[in-house]
């Protein structure tokens, strides 16, 4: 939670990304405490590994600096902060009042073994699993198409013409 708050108050994107990694790691520890050992491993590998590396590479590639404040962001702070705080306090008050006395979760039950999850995933959820593979394929193709340069898509086989300045330089070199 401290990491999540740190993500909000930092103005530089690199610091926000590193505090988000802290949030991911502590959530993986929470999953382990809740008995979901497979999900804890997946959380560390996929989120803290792959997705955050993607974020950091994008930040470094685009040379992102400090964000500047504008009029719109001040309005968003004035409206957003009290609204979100009121909503979260309301949710917390409702949940603590309702469920704290009856339902209990035991720590360390170690229920989500990879064997059980695989049996569920490949028997009951086989169709969503296959549809997910199609989704990932489309996402890869979309990412490649979006991130590549537009002229690389438009003219893949045509060789780049020699710029005019280079020709002039060559001509003047011969004259000397």
């Amino acid at each position: 939670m401290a990491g999540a708050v740190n993500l909000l108050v930092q103005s530089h994107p690199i610091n926000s990304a590193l505090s988000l990694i802290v949030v991911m790691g502590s959530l993986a520890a929470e999953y382990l405490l809740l008995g979901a050992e497979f999900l804890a491993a997946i959380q560390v590998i996929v989120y803290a590994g792959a997705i955050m590396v993607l974020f950091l590479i994008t930040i470094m590639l685009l040379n992102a600096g400090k964000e500047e404040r504008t009029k719109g962001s001040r309005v968003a702070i004035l409206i957003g902060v009290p609204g979100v705080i009121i909503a979260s306090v309301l949710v917390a008050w409702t949940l603590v009042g309702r469920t704290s006395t009856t339902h209990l979760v035991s720590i360390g039950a170690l229920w989500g073994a990879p064997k059980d999850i695989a049996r569920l995933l490949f028997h009951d959820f086989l169709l969503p699993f296959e549809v997910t593979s199609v989704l990932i394929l489309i996402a890869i193709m979309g990412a490649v198409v979006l991130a590549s340069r537009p002229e690389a898509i438009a003219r893949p086989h045509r060789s780049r013409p020699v710029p005019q300045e280079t020709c002039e330089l060559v001509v003047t070199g011969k004259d000397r």
Partner: protein
Amino acid sequence: MVPLSYYLVLSGILFACGVLGFLIKRNIITIFMSIELMLNGVNLSFVAFAAQWHALSGQVFVFFVMVVAAAEAAVGLAIVIAVYRTRETLNVDQVNLLKL
């Protein structure tokens, strides 16, 4: 033994932090990180309920949510790179035209 409501309150606080970051941040990469934070908050409540009811379906659902989050992050960051290439900015207030 930890009550289920503590996990749900933590999940709600994480989601609220994500909404807050989505509202007040003006850097588009940080906005994407806030979306990831919201997804993580929902995942925590899924795992807590799965442990509560001893049902593994919640964990499988978290698995699918993670896959969708990974695909969304890849496509979203590609869009960010394309926007930065044409606009030379990451501030969402200055990206106000749909055409390139």
